């Protein structure tokens, strides 16, 4: 099995050139998809028989929650790659993904709270998923804070990698214990994000929105990764030519 592809993938310069070609496509497709999906969800789908129009928030809340969780999983894989194969690009990805993941985590929390108001009349509901999302936000902030606190790049890279691996081991435990805690204390309230049997005309815009958000995330990550590459490889000749 030749590993050249894998190692080539690891070199920042190669990634910089390839991503240069992908970027315009990503930008156009993600923004178009998001606009179409949200317009469709907002204006053209009929309201939900139970929750009325407030359910339209689902087209942001669900993609944001999915994204927040899957970004953390991606960070854990990048962390494993950094620790095992010591590929610098993986650490750059880890460093770059954290703020994006945190922003989507906040978006999911806020939209969940806003959605809770018309449905239950209170802004914050200690629902199992919202609480797990809140703890996930703590994990994100922990990684961003640790990255800021350690100044030598190598030590910071490996420390954040270890922290995100410890975090990813902890996520199922947290989810399990929060769900268990939730059922213990509350009766069977309507689970906020449990999708009521989705009528097809609601399901399609949701899937489109999820795809749009994921493409948007890839685009943002490629943008940030290219900048991180320039900053980290500033001593190499190809960056010096690029900059001057």
């Amino acid at each position, binding site marked *: 099995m030749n590993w050249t592809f894998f190692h080539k993938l690891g070199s920042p*310069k190669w990634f910089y050139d390839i991503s240069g070609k992908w970027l315009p496509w990503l930008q156009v497709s993600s923004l178009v998809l998001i606009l179409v999906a949200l317009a469709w969800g907002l204006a053209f789908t009929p309201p939900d028989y139970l929750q009325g129009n407030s359910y339209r928030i689902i087209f942001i809340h669900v993609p944001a929650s999915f994204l927040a969780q899957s970004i953390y999983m991606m960070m854990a894989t990048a962390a494993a790659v950094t620790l095992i194969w010591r590929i610098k690009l993986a650490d750059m990805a880890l460093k770059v993904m954290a703020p994006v993941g945190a922003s989507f985590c906040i978006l999911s929390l806020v939209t969940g709270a806003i959605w809770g108001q018309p449905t239950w009349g209170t802004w914050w509901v200690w629902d199992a998923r919202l609480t797990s999302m809140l703890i996930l936000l703590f994990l994100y902030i922990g990684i961003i804070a640790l990255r800021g606190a350690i100044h030598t*790049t190598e030590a910071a890279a490996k420390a954040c990698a270890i922290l995100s691996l410890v975090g990813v081991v902890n996520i199922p435990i947290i989810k399990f214990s929060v769900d268990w805690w939730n059922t213990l204390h509350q009766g069977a309230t309507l689970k906020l994000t449990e999708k009521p049997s989705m009528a097809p005309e609601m399901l399609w815009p949701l899937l489109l929105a999820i795809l749009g958000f994921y493409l948007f995330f890839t685009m943002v990550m490629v943008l940030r990764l290219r900048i991180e590459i320039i900053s980290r490889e500033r001593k190499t000749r190809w960056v010096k030519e690029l900059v001057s």
Partner: protein
Amino acid sequence: MLNVVQLSCERDDRLLFSNLSFQLGSGEILQIEGRNGAGKTSLLRIIAGFSSSLSGDIFWNDQPLSAVYADFRLDCFFLGHKPGLKLDLTPLENLVWRARLANTIINREVLLAALDRVQLAGYEDIPCSHLSAGQLRRVAFAGLIASPARLWILDEPFTAIDIEGVSWLERLFDEHTHQGGMVLVTSHQPLNDRQGKLRKLNVEHFGEERSVDGERGQDVQG
């Protein structure tokens, strides 16, 4: 026998030194020179096995260090900038826990004899917080004498040591190399070479020769 081949280390994207090689046979002293920040301490810490982010390889008794790190550490004594002693404990207690950690069986007499050699005979049961910096260093040297390790890795051992302390330490090096030991030391003072076993290595010679060009930045180790 320590053998370092083509060692290079990058710290914060700054190339400290590259393809640095040397051998250290038994009975030899190697003094590492270089201006501050040239990477002397980093070199010592890499050889002692603290750092793993390096390219190039280190052999101990012609086996790769990563395979025999336990045997290497049994046979190596590392003294960093700080003496590594707990200030609330007495010198004797400090020497006991350090010996236990280094897996050496040491009884009281051996430790007392070592403390006596460093002129700290009466101080064995006074908390280290009452000792001066020089005396603390001498307690660390007592640990050095009492340890069976053949390879000594000492980082700036002469700081806070007075003149006759320096000559005492040089006599200690000679005695150690005479018994087949090896000494790897960094210091700014030139060591006088009484038995012709002293070699010097200047880290700056292996410093940043050329700006890191494109290909170099591509290799996986980074």
